[in-house]
């Protein structure tokens, strides 16, 4: 059954696969994680704010993006970003945006919705007394958020945030629909060029499986070690 398979194709193309493809995937994942958590935390604060219009806008944004497929969101931003860029920079023609920049923006804006819900739960799990104690000392809203609430919320939700990042790592593969060369894109290019679909896609599956398994086990170990003693 495996006789006619040529796994040497992997040996021949691994530089391209990892230094071009996987490098893109990892870069995008890391930047989108940071951007997504920052924007997501901001969205969470908006959703929890007592300023009703802010809470409403954030709520509509988060709920809409969580209700539609990521593929559709990728298409949306791919076409929308050049127009927004033109509007921001007051240009006449839509701006050309590179593949990495466009995908980064897409994933930050999309994953922020999921990070938002995680941080929202985290912020709400901090006892009200902590907020009162901060205010009683004279801290204003931003100070109490920055010094008291968010450090605790972030610490508590770190395992869930990291798990979501592993999901993000897998989601990045969908840039395939724009023919962008991430790890899967690189593999499929090699597969088509050499006619070795089975070998390449099996290899991709194995790499992802091992990577994600190791990552999620690390998160589980981390979860056991960090807990703020109350």
């Amino acid at each position, binding site marked *: 059954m495996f006789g006619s398979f040529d796994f040497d194709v992997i040996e021949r193309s691994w530089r391209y696969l990892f230094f071009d493809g996987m490098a893109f995937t990892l870069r995008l994942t890391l930047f989108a994680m940071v951007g997504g958590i920052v924007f997501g935390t901001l969205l969470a604060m908006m959703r929890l704010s007592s300023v009703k219009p802010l809470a409403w806008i954030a709520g509509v944004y988060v709920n809409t993006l969580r209700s539609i497929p990521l593929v559709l969101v990728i298409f949306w931003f791919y076409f929308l970003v050049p127009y927004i860029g033109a509007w921001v920079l007051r240009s006449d023609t839509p701006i050309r945006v590179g593949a990495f920049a466009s995908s980064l923006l897409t994933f930050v804006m999309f994953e922020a919705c999921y990070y938002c819900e995680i941080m929202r739960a985290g912020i709400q799990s901090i*006892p009200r*007394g*902590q907020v*009162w*104690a*901060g*205010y*009683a*000392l*004279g*801290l*204003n809203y931003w*100070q109490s958020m920055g*010094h*008291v609430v968010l*450090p*605790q919320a972030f*610490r508590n939700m770190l395992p869930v945030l990291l798990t979501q990042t592993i999901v993000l790592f897998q989601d990045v593969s969908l840039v395939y629909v724009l023919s962008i060369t991430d790890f899967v894109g690189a593999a499929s290019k090699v597969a088509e060029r050499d006619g070795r679909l089975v070998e390449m896609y099996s290899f991709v599956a194995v790499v992802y499986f091992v990577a994600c398994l190791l990552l999620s086990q690390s998160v589980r170990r981390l979860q056991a070690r960090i807990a*703020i*003693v*109350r």
Partner: protein
Amino acid sequence: MIKISGISKWYSSFQVLTDCSTEVAKGEVVVVCGPSGSGKSTLIKCVNGLEPFQQGTITVDGVSVGDPKTDLPKLRARIGMVFQNFELFPHMTVTQNLTLAQTKVLGRGREEALAKGMALLERVGLKAHAAKFPGNLSGGQQQRVAIARALCMDPIAMLFDEPTSALDPEMINEVLDVMVQLAQEGMTMMVVTHEMGFARRVADRVIFMDAGKIVEDTSKSEFFGTPRSERAQLFLSKILGH
């Protein structure tokens, strides 16, 4: 120092405070007591604006708490508050708990804040625990740190919301001792508590609340001697029993 006039507060349609009025003069120690649900915690949280109120006025040192133009954080920095659940910041050491508001709100330098923090820590008898986290301290120790944290801000008045209710019996006295000393040094204090022993020792006045209203507001001797209302008498008989 603290003037409370005609305070009424509703949670939606439920009235929790009805027309409460009283005063705490500079250097006075006022104890607020009453059964659960009488609104005493709510009232004290209105004094520094942690809880909003719909009717009436509260002024602290001439500044109106309910006025939208008042800079609340600035006012709160001048009023110290101690909570039932201590509410130390668990992710910071004792030292960091003490210096956070000094540096971020009062703008003190790090050395100055640290020196002040250590001095007050010594005063409550916990200097050796400066580098520890709240999770490593007992309840009584945490509450004493909380008192020190409030005192670091050099407040003009201190509010206490049931400071010993969450403590095991053997730790109550160490906290009460700190509070007694504070009172004897002339601090203006408003204390919500069940500890009548404390009230007898240092209170100037006792306020009894029931169902959102101030039922009695008399000097200590009058309150313990001959309380006028039946509710207060009933309450006293129940808690003085043990």
